[in-house]
């Protein structure tokens, strides 16, 4: 094991996490092949992956950058529609192939990153809690805009309208791609568990490498002390923008996975609304702010648990709210911090083992 110890710590952690993901993936595939997995569970495999991607990407903003984004579902929405738009409009050509799906993923990421950068350029140069409110407003408004957006395709090219599908003036053979509140129907179902799991691993690697890179250390320095970071010459806005845009792009990728996992893509408060953004935030807070691995674990647990505890369905959001408040107070209240120091698990274990030794 000497060799294992010489590998640097972050690489070791990466290997462990990816190893665990791969093992879980293999077990799931074996169970599917053996027919031992219920349909419910099989249907959850892809959502587990994109929720995990959403959670770790939000953790980049909240945990590493130290800013609060409440519009993560909005970026997911942008990615989902951009990706589905591409797949649907090139359905008879490249869009139906694997390469087409890769392009859709890329487009979704770029579209979400673009919106992230637009918001970031304006807001991130300011101090204060503006990002939270602007992203919250963005998340709410992007849904409204998509619900009045009509795009059609015919021989002459694309037609846009913000009124109704009649106003598109399509030729007879034209197809409506985005049909306002009815969304995009007939997106090819490209997302598979394998692709989703691979993207989760990729997202994990990108974020964990970023954290341990020069840029990542700069971002964390800004989080911990903005003034000190500025005075050693760190480009505050630039690095903040980098982290926030990357986070938005990953949410976009998760959105593409989502849109290619269902057949009808509609922007509703349920899938891309405030509740979704809060749910992702709960994954991050419960998993530990700044802890990437924790986010994945929390996302998996909180996605699986409600499926098995159906009777809690009505109280789910209420419990999320309480989780947010209680964890924050437990983590940050001076009294609680002191209490945790005196009652840490390690101390209790030590005192237990100490006693055992004495008795022996």
């Amino acid at each position, binding site marked *: 094991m000497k060799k294992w110890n010489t590998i640097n710590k972050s690489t070791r952690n990466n290997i462990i996490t990816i190893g665990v993901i791969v093992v879980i993936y293999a077990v799931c595939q074996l169970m599917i092949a053996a027919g031992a997995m219920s349909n419910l569970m099989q249907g959850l495999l892809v959502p587990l992956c994109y929720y995990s991607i959403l959670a770790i990407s939000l953790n980049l903003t*909240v945990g590493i950058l*130290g*800013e*609060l984004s*409440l519009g993560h579902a909005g970026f997911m929405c942008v990615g989902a529609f951009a990706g589905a738009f591409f797949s649907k409009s090139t359905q008879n050509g490249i869009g139906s192939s694997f390469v087409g799906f890769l392009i859709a993923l890329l487009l979704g990421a770029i579209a979400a990153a673009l919106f992230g950068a637009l*918001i970031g350029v*304006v*807001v991130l140069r*300011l101090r204060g*809690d*503006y990002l*939270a*409110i*602007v992203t*919250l*407003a*963005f998340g*709410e*408004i992007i849904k*409204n*805009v998509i*619900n*009045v957006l009509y795009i059609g395709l015919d021989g002459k090219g694309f037609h846009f309208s*913000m009124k109704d599908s009649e106003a598109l003036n399509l030729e007879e053979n034209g197809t409506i791609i985005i049909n306002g509140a009815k969304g995009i129907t007939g997106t090819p179902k490209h997302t598979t568990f394998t692709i989703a799991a691979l993207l989760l691993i990729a997202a994990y690697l990108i974020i964990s490498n970023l954290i341990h890179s020069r840029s990542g250390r700069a971002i964390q320095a800004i989080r911990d002390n903005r*003034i000190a970071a500025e005075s050693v010459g760190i480009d505050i806005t630039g690095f903040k923008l980098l982290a926030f845009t990357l986070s938005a792009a990953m949410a976009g990728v998760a959105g593409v996975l989502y849109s290619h996992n269902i057949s009808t893509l509609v922007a509703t408060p349920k899938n891309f609304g*405030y509740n979704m953004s*809060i749910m992702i*935030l709960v994954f991050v*807070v419960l998993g530990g*702010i700044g802890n990437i691995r924790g986010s994945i674990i929390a996302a998996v647990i909180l996605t699986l648990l409600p499926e098995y505890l159906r009777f809690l369905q*009505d*109280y789910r*959001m*209420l419990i*999320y*709210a*309480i*989780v*947010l*408040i209680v964890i*924050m*107070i437990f*983590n*940050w*209240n*001076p*009294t*609680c911090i002191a209490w945790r120091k005196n009652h840490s698990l390690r101390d209790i274990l030590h005192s237990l083992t100490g006693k055992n030794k004495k008795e022996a």
Partner: protein
Amino acid sequence: MSFISYLIKGISLGSVYSIIALGYTMVYGIAKMLNFAHGDVIMVGGYVIFTVMSMIGLNPFVAVLLSIILCTLLGITIERVAYKPLRSASSLAVLITAIGVSYLLQNLALLIFGADTKSFTSIIAVPALKLADGRLTISGETLVTIPLCILIMVLLTVFVKRSKTGRSMQAVSEDKAAAVLMGINVNKTIAITFAIGSSLAAVASVLMFSAYPSLTSTSGSMPGIKAFVAAVFGGIGSIPGAMLGGILLGVIEILGRAYISSQLADAIVFLILIIVLLVKPTGILGKKIQEKV
């Protein structure tokens, strides 16, 4: 004529925004935190009046009074339970807690009152005013809202400038540590600020739901966001700024709804926030904050 009627409607809506924005701006000025739950206090106020009037059948004045008292108590409780333990914590922690409180209020209301939209009966029994041979109608709600907003604004300014509590609020917002040394009870001052903000939210809920009578568990959040935008627009921390920002925002929203697009009205408001942050982040009447290292 229609332009003038839109303008008046806009000022009326803007007055409601400015009353809500006062709550944001005072709390932000004193506790240096963004109280996300402020918008949801409006929703609670609406439900209290709705319950008292339609289920118990009491007089509207009793209902309004009860709503103001309950919202004030709610504001103080929220501060005491959720924000006070985190006074020394990072702003991110406080912000997430505030989101938690907002989400908690929304979902409690959802569980208690259900997901269906309740229709709120207007309790402002002032007849509409018809001007220019009936071509211009000003609703009773507007006739009450605008003068009430001006009254609140004047009273609040006098209170903050002249009273002892008001002065201690100014002191706490200026420098918390120095205020403590001067013998000001910071915790009490912050609690009073929350109480005033929440009681104003209750007043705003009466005005808002009388004019826009649909009540759901989330109907406080969008006005809350817009009021925050109004507070930023006018200069956060400034009382006249909240008033000015609120009225400008209300007018822009109604005009945008009327002349540009009704579905995009919210997007227009959001765009204004972006422009304000881009051009003058401290708002119209805001002071530039000197940063001490």
